[in-house]
């Protein structure tokens, strides 16, 4: 799983910004990107908790931070190095940050 996040300090260099459409079509074609999407703005977020049987809802994301998740991509890569190569070519690697997190292996 690759979380696409904003960052308080984006890369100031405006040169050679990669294009998101090119990134998506290349990685779809290679079979490395299984699916993914941008998310609606955080103003649309609702946080849900159940405590002692009570449904608790709150408006907005669960953490007030400058870095928020704005999208995700589901990648299929052989190892971390391959995933890093895919991530570094994403435009948000410069404008924000990306977090790579494999799916947990349940019982082996």
């Amino acid at each position, binding site marked *: 799983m690759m979380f696409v996040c904003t960052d308080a300090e984006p890369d100031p260099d405006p040169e050679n910004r990669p294009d998101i459409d090119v990134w998506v079509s290349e990685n779809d074609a290679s079979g490395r990107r299984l699916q993914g999407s941008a998310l609606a703005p955080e103003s649309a977020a609702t946080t849900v908790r159940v405590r002692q049987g009570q449904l608790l809802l709150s408006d907005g994301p669960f953490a007030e931070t400058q870095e928020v998740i704005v999208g995700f991509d589901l990648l299929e*890569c*052989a*190892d*971390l*190095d391959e*995933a*890093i*190569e895919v991530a570094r070519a994403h435009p948000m690697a410069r404008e924000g940050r990306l977090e*790579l997190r*494999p799916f*947990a*292996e349940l019982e082996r």
Partner: protein
Amino acid sequence: MTDRRPAAAASAAAAACSDAYPRIVAALIRVTGEWTLAEDCAQEALALALQRWPEQGVPANPGGWLMTVARNRAIDVLRRASVERRKLRELAVLALTDPDPASAQPVQEEVVDDRLRLIFTCCHPALTLEARVALTLRTICGVPAADIARVLLVSESTMTRRLTRAKSKIADAGIPYRVPSGPALAERLPGVLAVLYLLFTRGYNADGRPAFAEEAIRLARLLKQLMPEQNEVSGLLALFLFQHSRRDARQDAEGNLLSLDRQDRSRWDHAAIAEALDLLAATGRNGPYALQARIAACHATAASADATDWRTIARCYDELARLQPTPVVQLNRAVAHGYAHGPSAGLALLAQARAGGSLADHPHALAVQADLTARQGEHDRAAVLFRQAAALAHSEPERRALLDRADRG
């Protein structure tokens, strides 16, 4: 072919073990993917050798003997845990890739490659720098976790947790057990060398000597043997050898650190210096480590401090400052030019280096300015600057040395 004298057997065992350890660990990790198992089995094989060889003699192929014992131990453990057949089959085949001196070349190469894979995995940039240093010492050098903890000033349980976390990260995040190729290699090699450099400089034993310098040198030699075409590897090994050549001359009888100009040069390790000079002579393009080694070479080959070739040192710093324009490099460059071309040349470069602002209130920058000012003959102003530097000094001995300079003018 066996040597039965206990003392000779013990030293042969120690030598064979330090050479064989990373090979065994690397091969077992490749086949089983289990780091702790690989380390435990390698350790057990070494322990058995140190116990048996002094009595029964060193086998003709000590590396092969150790590999076989470690492999059989791993098979036992995995069989008890009833692991998949594939791993067991591959382990059984591992016997064929024992580092047998009589065996054919391609087999040797495969084993060599394992150790390189292990180095690149331990130094993967997705691990924290602390974890990389600890893992390299533990897995490749075989240093016990307790010893690493003691030198790096953390508790043994903290170190054990750090190592466990690093190994889980490798497994969970899918860090590959592989040497990167092509442009990725150029990107990753500096990170590996940085870990070796940190190993060399981090941590001191109770006697004030660097704790892991020998391990860092051994790793640099291994890396040099595995990647002979990489100039920066040779540069780093040469830099280590130059710095290490001064290990016996660095302190006076009371344990105070001696600067280069006050060291007894006859106590430098001249064999190490000669080896480092040979390495540099065979090194082509200069990277940051090769340049630092060339600077160290100027100091190492000067008959006295006064005879130092400061012009060459200044040229090397010019080149280094182009590659790595860090404040510390700029500062050292000003010092070198001060000696090579006179104090005003040094002061001009110092002003330039300070223009960025990162050297403001830096005690070394002030001390350099004070020294250059004194050499210009402005002793009153130099004394004021030495006192300012003393007020900012990070340590008490440093503060005393600066105040002493202020009084001497």
